[in-house]
C-alpha cells in the first residue's frame, strides 16, 4: 500500500483548509466570555484543591475550637477565623479549602471511570456493530432505565462507606450516558465521505475505526465529560448529604459539611451556606466551560 500517501491528505482535509476543528474551537473559546469565566472558576478550583495545605491558615480537621461551636453559639467571622468556626470546632476557611480537594478528586476520578468504561463500551458497540452492538446497547438501555442518582445511591450503599465507594458509584452511573453518546456519534461519522474513502482505499476496519472514526467522534463526548464533572461534584455532595461516602466527619467534604451544619441551623445557618455556595460556584464553572466548549465545537458555529 504505497498509493494512499498522495491521496489521503487531500481526502482528510476539513472543510476549511488549514484550520482543524480543535484549532477553530480554541480560537472561538478565547473569544467567549462564558468560556473565560468558566475556565477561570475551574482553574481557581483546581489551584485551591492542589494548594489547600499552603493556602489554609490552620490544620484541617482540628478540634481546637470546639468550645466555639455549641448548640446555642457558633463563632462567626473574626480576624483570626475569616469565615468563623465550623460545626466540629475547626477553622471554616481551612475546611472549605480542603473540601475542594475531596470534590476534585472524587469528581475527576468518577467522571474518568464513567468516561473510560463508557468509551470502551461505546467504541465496541459502534465499531463492531452486529450482535455486540445489540448486546451492549440492551445493557445500556437497562442501566438508563434507572435514574442515574438512584443508581449511584444504590451502588454506594452496597459498597459501604468510603470515598472509593462514591467514586465507583458515581462513575458507574455515568457509563451508559457516555457509551450511548460515543456510539451515536461514531455511527453518524461512519456514514461520512472520509470513511467511505478510507474503505475504498482498503484500509483495515480496525484502523478506520480507531484512527478515523473514533478521533472525529470524541467532541461531543469531551463536552459531556466537562458537563458531567459539574454533575459529579453535585452528586458527591448529594450522596454525602444522604450519609453515604466517607464516614469520618473530620475529613472535609462540602456535602457533609452542609448536613453537619443542620443541627446548628437556627443559630448559625452559614455553617450550611458556605459549603453549599462552594458547590454551586464550582458546578457553575464546569457548566459554563462545558457549554462554551459545546458551542465552540459545534460545526454550525464555524465561519
Amino acid at each position, binding site marked *: 500500500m504505497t498509493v494512499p500517501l498522495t491521496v489521503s491528505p487531500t481526502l482528510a482535509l476539513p472543510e476549511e483548509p488549514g484550520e482543524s476543528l480543535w484549532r477553530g474551537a480554541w480560537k472561538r473559546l478565547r473569544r467567549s466570555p462564558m468560556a473565560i469565566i468558566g475556565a477561570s472558576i475551574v482553574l481557581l478550583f483546581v489551584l485551591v484543591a492542589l494548594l489547600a495545605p499552603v493556602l489554609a491558615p490552620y490544620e484541617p480537621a482540628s478540634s481546637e475550637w470546639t468550645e466555639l461551636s455549641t448548640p446555642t453559639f457558633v463563632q462567626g467571622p473574626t480576624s483570626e477565623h475569616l469565615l468563623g468556626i465550623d460545626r466540629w470546632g475547626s477553622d471554616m476557611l481551612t475546611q472549605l479549602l480542603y473540601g475542594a480537594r475531596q470534590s476534585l478528586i472524587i469528581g475527576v476520578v468518577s467522571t474518568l471511570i464513567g468516561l473510560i468504561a463508557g468509551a470502551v463500551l461505546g467504541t465496541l458497540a459502534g465499531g463492531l456493530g452486529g450482535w455486540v452492538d445489540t448486546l451492549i446497547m440492551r445493557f445500556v438501555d437497562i442501566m438508563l432505565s434507572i435514574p442515574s442518582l*438512584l443508581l449511584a445511591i444504590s451502588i454506594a450503599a*452496597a459498597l459501604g462507606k468510603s470515598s472509593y465507594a462514591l467514586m465507583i458509584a458515581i462513575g458507574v452511573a455515568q457509563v451508559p450516558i457516555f457509551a450511548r453518546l460515543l456510539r451515536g456519534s461514531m455511527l453518524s461519522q461512519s456514514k461520512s465521505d472520509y470513511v467511505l474513502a478510507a474503505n475504498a482505499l482498503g484500509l483495515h476496519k480496525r484502523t478506520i475505526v480507531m484512527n478515523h472514526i473514533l478521533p472525529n467522534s470524541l467532541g461531543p463526548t469531551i463536552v459531556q465529560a466537562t458537563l458531567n464533572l459539574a454533575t459529579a461534584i453535585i452528586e458527591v*455532595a448529594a450522596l454525602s448529604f444522604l450519609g453515604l461516602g466517607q464516614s469520618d466527619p473530620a475529613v472535609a467534604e462540602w456535602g457533609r459539611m452542609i448536613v453537619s451544619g443542620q443541627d446548628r*441551623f437556627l443559630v448559625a445557618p452559614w455553617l450550611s451556606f458556605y459549603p*453549599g455556595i462552594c458547590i454551586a460556584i464550582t458546578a457553575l464553572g464546569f*457548566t459554563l466551560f462545558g457549554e462554551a466548549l459545546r458551542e465552540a465545537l459545534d460545526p454550525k458555529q464555524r465561519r
Partner: protein
Amino acid sequence: MMLRFALRRLASLVPTLFGLSILLFAWLRLLPGDPARSLLGQRATPESIERVNESYGFNDPLLQQYLKYIWALLQGDLGTSISLKEPVLTAFWDKLPATIELTVVALIFAVVIGIPLGYYAGRHQGGWTDTAVVSTSLLGVVVPVFFLAIILKYIFAIQLGLFETANRQSSRIDAEHPTNFYVLDGIITGNLGASWDALLHLVLPGIALGTIPFAIIVRITRASVSEVVHEDFVRTAESKGLAASTINRRHVLRNALLPVVTTIGLQLGLLLSGAVLTETVFSLGGIGQYLFDAITVRDYPVLQGFILFIALMYALINLVVDLSYGLIDPRVRVS
C-alpha cells in the same frame, strides 16, 4: 395504528425489565454487606443471623432465590421488607401518593413558570431579560437540590414563617385520608382547610425539586422557540396577515412545544431521584425517604422492588410522552 404502536412499545419493555430484574438481583446479592447483620445490629449472635438467613431463604442457591423472586413478582408480590416486616407493595402504595404529590407540584411549577419564561426569552433573544432568564435557569442547574431546599426552608419557613418546615400536614389538623393524597383527601372529605394546609407543606419542597426540570424546560423552550420563529411557515403566516397572537399560539408555540414535551418526560427520572433528597430535607415520608431508609439497612426486597417499579413507571411515562407526540404533531402519527 396508535394502538399497535403502543402495544409494540409495551412489548419491547418486557426484555428490558426482565434483564433489569436479573441484574438487580445478581448484583445486590454479590456485593458485600449482610442484610441479616444490619437487621439484627451489632450484638447479633451467629445463631440468630443463621435463623434470619434461613427464614428469608438467603441460604438457598442463587438461581432458586431468583426464580422464587421472579415467580412472586409475576403475581404482583414484590417481597416483604426485612426491616419493616410488611409487604413491599403495601408500603409502596402507602408512600407513593406523597411522592406523586411532590412531583406533580414540582412539575407544575417547572412547566407553568418555565414555558412562559423560555418562550419570552426565545422571542427576545439577546436582550437583558433573555440574559436574566438564562442566568436564572443556569442557577437551577448548578445549585444542588438539597441545598436549595435548605435555603428555601431557611428564608421562607424559618425567617418569614410563610410556609411549613417539615411533614405533610400540620399535626393540629384532624383529617381523614382515604386515598393518602393529602390534598385530594381534603377535597373528597370536604375538609378544604386540610387540603390547603397540605398544599402549603408542598410549596417549598415542590419549588426546590422543580428547579431541575424548570432550568431544562426554560432552556429547551427558549432554544426551540428561537428556532421556530425563523421557519418558513411562520413567515407564510405573517404574510397571510394573521394576527400576531394567532401566529404565536397556533404556529410558534405549538411547534416549539414538541421538544419540550419529550424533555418533560425525560425529567421524571431526575425528579424521582431528586425526591429522595427533597423528601429527606422536608421529612415528607414518601417513597424517596423510604427508599433511602431501605438503602441504609440493606433491605434487599425493598431495594429490588422499588428500583424495578421506578424503572417500570419511568418506561411507561416515556411511552405516554411518545404517544402524546401524536396529539401535538400530526406528522409523527404517520411514521
